[in-house]
C-alpha cells in the first residue's frame, strides 16, 4: 500500500525529480563549475524569465492548458519597445512608456487569442503553438516590410536598415546613462543574493505560520508534520545563509536586482490573490468543468478569454523585464523561444496541463535554468564534447514537454478507464446525456 503511494508520488513528480537529479549529477560530474558563476547565472536567468513563466499559471487554472500563445504577448512588448526606442525614450520614463504602450496591445491580442481558443476548444495548446508561428509571420511583415515600406521612416535612423525598409536585426537598447533602456529596472537598486535568500526564508517561515493558522481556523484536520518539516528546512537554509554572510564568501558578490525582485514578488502575490477572488474561483470552476460551470450560470467563454488576456499581458510585461536585462534586442528572434522555454520550465516545476501554481513556476524556473547552465558541462564531462551537451539540452527541452504531457494524459486516461461510472459526472458525457435526453423526447 505504502509502496504504491510512493510510486504514485514518483509518477506525479517524475519531471521535477529527473531535473533535481540531473542538476545534482551535473554538479558532481563536471569538475569545475564555480559556485559564484552558477549562482550569478541562475539568479540573473531566474529574474529574466520568472514572470514569463508565471504568466502561464492563470490559463492552466482556467482549463486552457499551457498557453503557448504567450509568444504573442512577447511580440506586443517588442512592438512597444520599437516605438519607445524609435522616439528614443529611455530611463525610467521610457520604461513606464514601454509598459503603458505594451499593455493595450497585449490586451487586444490576448482578446483575439482567447476568441481563437474558444473556437478551438480542446485543442488550445496546439492552436497556441501554431498561432505563435502565424503571428510571427505577421510580425515580420510589419517590421520587415511595412516599416519603411508603407509607413515612411527616416532611412538614416539607427534602428532602420540602411536601405530604409524594415528594422535592423539587432537593436542596441543603450545604457540608461545614455538615455537607454538597459537595466532600466534592474539597475535601480541591487542587493546581495544571500541576503535576499535569507530574507525569503524568514518570510517563508512567517507565511507558513499564517497559512497554518488559517487552516486551523477553517478547522482542517491536516497533519502538522508537513508544516514542521517545511519550517525545519527553511530554518536550516536560513542558518546556512547566515553562515555565508558571516564567512563573507565569494557568494556575497552575487547581487540581485531589487526592484525586479519586488515586481516578481508582487506578481506572485497578485496571482495568488487572484485565485482567492470570485474571478479566480470562476476560473477554477471553468477549468474543472465547463459544463457544470455553464449550468450554474458562469459565462464560460468570457472567463476563458479574460484568462488568456491576463496571461498575454503578463507575458508582455515578462518580456519587458527580459529585454531590459538583456540590453540588446534581436528584432526577429528574441520572442521565438519564449513559449517553448517558459512552458518547459513550468512543467519542470511539476505543473501539469490541469494544475499549476506559483510554486511550480518558481521551482521550475530554477531547475530548468540550472539545467541549461549545467548541460554544456555535462556534455563536456560525459560525452567529451560541448556540442553533444548542446544537442542534449535541446533534447531535454522538447523531451520534457513531451514527457510531462504524455504522463498527464496517460494518467487521466487510466483513471477514466478505472471508473467508467464516474464518467457520468464528467463534463463531456454530462453534456452527452444532456442531449441524448433531447433524443429521447
Amino acid at each position, binding site marked *: 500500500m505504502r509502496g504504491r503511494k510512493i510510486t504514485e508520488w514518483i509518477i506525479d513528480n517524475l519531471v521535477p525529480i529527473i531535473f533535481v537529479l540531473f542538476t545534482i549529477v551535473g554538479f558532481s560530474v563536471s569538475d569545475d563549475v564555480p559556485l559564484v558563476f552558477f549562482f550569478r547565472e541562475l539568479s540573473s536567468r531566474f529574474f529574466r524569465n520568472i514572470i514569463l513563466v508565471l504568466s502561464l499559471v492563470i490559463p492552466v487554472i482556467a482549463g486552457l492548458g499551457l498557453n503557448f500563445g504567450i509568444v504573442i504577448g512577447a511580440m506586443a512588448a517588442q512592438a512597444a519597445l520599437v516605438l519607445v526606442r524609435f522616439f528614443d525614450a529611455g530611463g525610467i520614463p521610457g520604461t513606464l512608456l514601454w509598459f503603458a504602450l505594451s499593455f493595450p496591445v497585449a490586451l487586444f491580442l490576448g482578446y483575439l487569442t482567447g476568441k481563437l481558443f474558444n473556437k478551438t476548444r480542446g485543442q488550445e495548446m496546439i492552436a497556441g503553438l501554431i498561432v505563435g508561428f502565424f503571428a510571427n509571420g505577421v510580425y515580420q511583415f510589419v517590421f520587415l516590410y511595412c516599416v519603411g515600406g508603407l509607413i515612411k521612416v527616416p532611412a538614416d535612423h539607427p534602428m532602420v536598415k540602411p536601405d530604409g525598409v524594415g528594422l535592423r536585426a539587432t537593436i542596441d537598447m543603450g545604457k540608461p546613462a545614455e538615455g537607454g533602456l538597459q537595466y532600466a529596472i534592474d539597475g535601480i537598486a541591487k542587493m546581495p543574493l544571500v541576503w535576499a535568500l535569507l530574507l525569503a526564508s524568514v518570510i517563508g517561515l512567517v507565511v507558513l505560520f499564517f497559512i497554518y493558522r488559517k487552516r486551523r481556523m477553517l478547522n482542517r484536520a491536516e497533519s502538522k508534520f508537513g508544516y514542521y518539516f517545511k519550517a525545519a528546512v527553511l530554518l536550516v537554509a536560513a542558518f546556512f545563509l547566515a553562515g555565508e554572510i558571516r564567512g563573507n564568501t565569494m557568494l556575497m558578490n552575487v547581487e540581485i536586482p531589487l526592484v525586479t525582485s519586488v515586481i516578481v514578488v508582487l506578481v506572485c502575490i497578485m496571482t495568488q490573490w487572484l485565485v482567492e*477572488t470570485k474571478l479566480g474561483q470562476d476560473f477554477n*470552476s471553468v477549468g474543472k468543468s465547463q459544463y457544470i460551470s455553464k449550468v*450554474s450560470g458562469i459565462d464560460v467563454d468570457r472567463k476563458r478569454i479574460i484568462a488568456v488576456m491576463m496571461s498575454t499581458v503578463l507575458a508582455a510585461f515578462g518580456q519587458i523585464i527580459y529585454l531590459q536585462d538583456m540590453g540588446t534586442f534581436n528584432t526577429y528572434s528574441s520572442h521565438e523561444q519564449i513559449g517553448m522555454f517558459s512552458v518547459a520550465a513550468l512543467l519542470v516545476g511539476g505543473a501539469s496541463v490541469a494544475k499549476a501554481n506559483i510554486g511550480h513556476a518558481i521551482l521550475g524556473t530554477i531547475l530548468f535554468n540550472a539545467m541549461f547552465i549545467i548541460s554544456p558541462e555535462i556534455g563536456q564531462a560525459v560525452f567529451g564534447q560541448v556540442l553533444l551537451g548542446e544537442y542534449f539540452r535541446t533534447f531535454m527541452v522538447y523531451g520534457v514537454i513531451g514527457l510531462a504531457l504524455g504522463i498527464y494524459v496517460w494518467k487521466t486516461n487510466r483513471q477514466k478507464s478505472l471508473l467508467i*461510472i464516474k464518467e*457520468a459526472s464528467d463534463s463531456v458525457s454530462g453534456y452527452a446525456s*444532456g442531449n441524448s435526453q433531447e433524443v429521447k423526447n
Partner: protein
Amino acid sequence: MNTCLLNIKNVSKEYNGNQVLKDVSFSVMKGEIHALVGENGAGKSTLMNILFGMPVIHSTGGFKGSIEIDGKRSSIKSPVEAMRAGIGMVHQEFMLIPGYSITENIKINRETTYDNIISRILSKQLQTLDRVKMAKDARRALDSLDIGIEEYVKIEGLPVGYKQFIEIAREIDKEGLKILVFDEPTAVLTETEAANLLSAVQRLAANGIGIVFISHRLDEIMDVADKVTILRDGSLVVTKEKKDTDPHEIAQLMVGRTVSIRRNETADQKKFGSSILSLKNFHVEMPGEQVKGVDLEVKEGEILGIGGLAGHGKLGIANGIMGIYPATGEAVFDGRQLKPNDSKNSIRSGLAFVSEDRKGVGLLLDESIEMNIVFTVMQMNNSFTHDLGFAKIRNAEAIRKHAKKMIDDLDIRCTSSLQAAGSLSGGNQQKVCLARALTQNPRLLLISEPTRGIDIGAKKLILDLLLELNRKHNMTIIMTSSELAELRSICDRIVIVCEGRIEGILPPDASDTDFGLMMSGSQRRLKVKTGETGHGGH
C-alpha cells in the same frame, strides 16, 4: 399552506412534428410534495426542461401555454433565470465538480465575497472569497439535512448517497428557493439512504418549499407525496390526492394505453425449441444501465422482449452479451461459453446486434449504405473481398449486388446504394442496421429500441419485419424496448428489468397493472412493506 407556488397551464410542446406534450396543467402549493409519474417518453423530462428554460426547448421553437411562479406569469429562458425565479433541481446525474470541496460545490457561482481595495476600484469580480462564511453557509445547509460530513471534504470518492444530499444542500442554500424538483432522486440510493432522503424531503416541504417529486417508485410516492399527477404519452391522465388512490391504480393509469399494434396470434400456440442462450448471474458495467446479476433462459425460435424503465439495465443485457461493455458472469450461447468483453467472439458465434444508439454505435453515418451493410461480415469472415494473398481488397460488384438485394427486401428508401447512411431518415437508417445484422445471418438477433425516434408508419414496418423473420425463418430474437406496447405486440414472453435485476417475466397479454407494478419495482417492495408495517412512516 394554500398559496400556489407553481402553476403550469395547458403546456404543449412538439419536437419537429411529433407532439410530446399535449396541454398539460398542474399546480404545486406551498409546502406540498407533488409526485409526477409516467413511463419514459411520457413527457416528464420535457416538462422539466420547459420549467428550467433549457436551451433544448428554445432551440426547437419554444412551447405553448404558460407557467406561473408565485402567481406571477414568468417566461424562463435559461437555467440561470430559473435559478433566480427560485426553482431548484436535484439532478439525476450529479452536477458536482469532483475536484472541489463540498463547500465550493454548494457555493459554485454563488460564492460569498467581501470587498478589497482593488475590487472597489476595478470590478466586483475581484472581491475576495469569504471562505469562512462560505463554510458556515455550507455547514448550515448540510445541518438542515442533518448530514454529519465535514464541509471541506472533496467530492471525489464520496458515496453517491452523500452526493445526492450535497445536490440538495446546494439547492436549499440558494436564497429564495420556492420550488425544488427531484428527478428520480432515489434511483441510485440504497434503501436506507433513500429513507433518509425522503425524510429530508418531507422536512423541506414542512419549511414551506413546494416540491415536484419525479419517481417511479410508487411505494415512495405513497410514503411522501400529497398529490400525484400521472402523465402518459405526453398528456395529463389525472391529478389525484394521495389518499384517494393506491399503487395499483397509479400503475394501471401509468401504463394502460390503447395498444397501437394488434397482435393476431398468441404465444401459447407456438412450440419453442430448447434453450439457445442462457445467462447466469450476469453483470454488465454499462454506464447508466448497469445489470446486477441476471439469470435468463432464451428458447430457440421465440421473440423475447426485455422491458423496463430507463436506467434500470434493460439495455445493458444486450450490450453485455455482445461484449460491448465489460460483463461478468456466465453467458452460454448454443452450448458454448461466450467470452466476456469480446465482440468478435460474440459475432463469430452467430449473434447479431442492432444497437439502441443508432447514430453513435449503429452506423458509419458518412459511409455509403452498402458499406454499412457489408462492413461487419467483411471484417469478421472476409466475405465480399478479392483475396490477393497479401491483402484482401473489397469486391465492389458483390457488395453492390448484395446491397441491392437488401435494399429491395427491406425496402430501404434511398437514391442509390452509395448514398451516405447519415442522409437517410430514421426508419431507413434502422433498416440499414437491420440489413447489416441480417447479412451476418445470425442464429440469434438482439435488437434494442428498434423504433426509437421513428414515425409510426415505419414502426409498424419494422415490427412486422421482425415478426416475419421470426415466424418464417424461425430466427430467435431478443428485443429490448422501453415501449411496452410494441413489446406486447410481437413478443412471446416479456422480461421486466428493474434496478439491474429481473423483476419478473410476463406473457404479452398480462394486465397493465402487473406491468406497471413490475416496472416500478413496487410489487416486491409493497410486499415487504405489508410485512413490516411499523417502520412505514419513518
